[in-house]
């Protein structure tokens, strides 16, 4: 984006492409959909709470309808009973959409390796940002949101564009 201003007080003009203007608008108005199943959900509440305050990053409007959300924040263990539900919710979200996988369980299954736990949500969804930790601190969630904003800024491709990985 290039801004040109002739003189103080006089009308200036801005040169930009439509894509970057839209991306700039999106950057500070990401609507997360929190798919919080387990322990990580408590830290998600912490991130949106008073102390960490996600509003500073423009991502505080939690939508509980997938059709209104841009970012799917998967927080917690996903098991085989839940996996079809998660996939369906992802499919209901409108493009462009991003996925954050929060916590060891969502990333890899964590220390649950048994008959019921899905070993990482990237088996069924494209994931943009992984947050490690069991559970991650609220700083981790803020960092993930900032990373998605960086992706928008630089125009980095979303994971969904590379999906499925051959």
């Amino acid at each position, binding site marked *: 984006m290039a801004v040109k201003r002739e003189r103080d007080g006089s009308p200036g003009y801005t040169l930009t492409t439509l894509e970057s203007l839209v991306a700039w608008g999106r950057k500070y108005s990401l609507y997360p959909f929190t798919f919080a199943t387990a322990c990580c959900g408590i830290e998600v509440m912490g991130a949106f709470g008073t102390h960490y305050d996600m509003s500073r990053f423009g991502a505080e409007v939690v939508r509980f309808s997938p059709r209104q959300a841009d970012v799917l924040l998967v927080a917690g263990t996903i098991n085989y009973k839940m996996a079809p539900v998660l996939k369906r919710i992802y499919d209901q979200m409108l493009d462009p959409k991003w996925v954050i996988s929060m916590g060891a369980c969502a990333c890899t299954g964590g*220390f649950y390796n048994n008959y019921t736990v899905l070993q990482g949500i990237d088996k069924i969804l494209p994931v943009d940002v992984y947050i490690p930790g069991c559970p991650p601190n609220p700083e981790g969630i803020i960092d993930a949101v900032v990373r998605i904003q960086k992706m928008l800024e630089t125009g980095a491709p979303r994971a969904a564009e590379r999906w499925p990985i051959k």
Partner: protein
Amino acid sequence: MTDRIEIEARSTHLDMQAEPMLINIGPSHPATHATLRFKALLDGETIIDLESEFGYLHRGFEKESEAATWTQVIPYTDRLNYVSPLMNNVGYAMAVEKLCGIKTTERCDYIRVIISELSRIIDHMVCIGTNMVDLGALTNFWYFWKPREEVYKLIEELCGQRLTTAYTRIGGLMADLPDGWTDRVLAVCRGVIPECIADVNALLTKNRIFIERTMGVGPIAAKDAVALGFTGPCLRAAGVPLDLRKDQPYLVYDRFDFDVPIGEKGDTCDRYMVRMEEMRQSLRIIEQAIAHLPGGPVNVDDPRFTLPPKELVYENIEALMNHFKFIMEGIQVPAGEAYSATEAANGELGFYIVSRGGGGPYKIKVRPPCFPLFQGIRHLVKGQMVADLIAVLGSVNIIAGELDR
């Protein structure tokens, strides 16, 4: 008493001249906390019948623990009730100690009481806070997050993690308290916690909207609550003064002076009032426990159960071998079975453990407090409005981690 909906049998005696409507709520719904699901049969807005489904967070706790050593199970217990993990740690450690015949040191018992009561407070805060969010009162939630963050700071000092603590060990604790920790606990317990409780109390208790949304909503009679196996605040709200801290005192609870609040009707308002009062009583217990906190070691003086000190492990071959065996094989628990119950924030948390000797459990069954409570939801909301389902669900405090294990 089947809990499956049968439409044909129930389509008579309707207020409206229409077929009853079956709607699905969850499993991804803001008020079901993402992992519960209901199928509600409605006549207009009245719930005729309700079928609950869960298991969307079933993580195989019992199968995992059968493959672990006794000490390795402790981190799994954190993730049962992740709102108050310290209490699960205490409950599990007490069950194994019962099987081993260990008598923990007095200092350890006092510290366990302090951490349990701190967790009880933050658990009730989450319960009330999220319940009010579901009813549209967001402010209480923000108010209650402030003391929670303060308590998390204390817990982080104690064991290095905010949420998943793994603080107890069989026969003691991971480490003794950090310097000055009790003073900081007292500062929080005299400062920010009672302030925030008072703020929420002022916002809610005499608030007309709150009263109309909660009073008379989801009531249960004492007899039904007992038959359904309710425990904890939900049972006490129905007027049954069952509190294991008083009735079967464990740790050192018999040395403290505290009251057990009970309600009358067992409705959502009573459950809220009981929880508010329990937080104040927990503060009393913490004050007394810190005032009488004895010195001495926190772990039992027994090489079979306690890790040797780190300095000795580096210097001394016996200690090194002992440490190695302890970690690789686990502590040796005699064959037998034991059931140990503690009063967790939601009710009786029981651990039934079976050992056949050796370093790992043969079977661990958790008796989660939420399980019968969730079963009773159908009883609580029948004949109520569908919007009240949300109020009731929030007030019984279902934690999916311990419900599904």
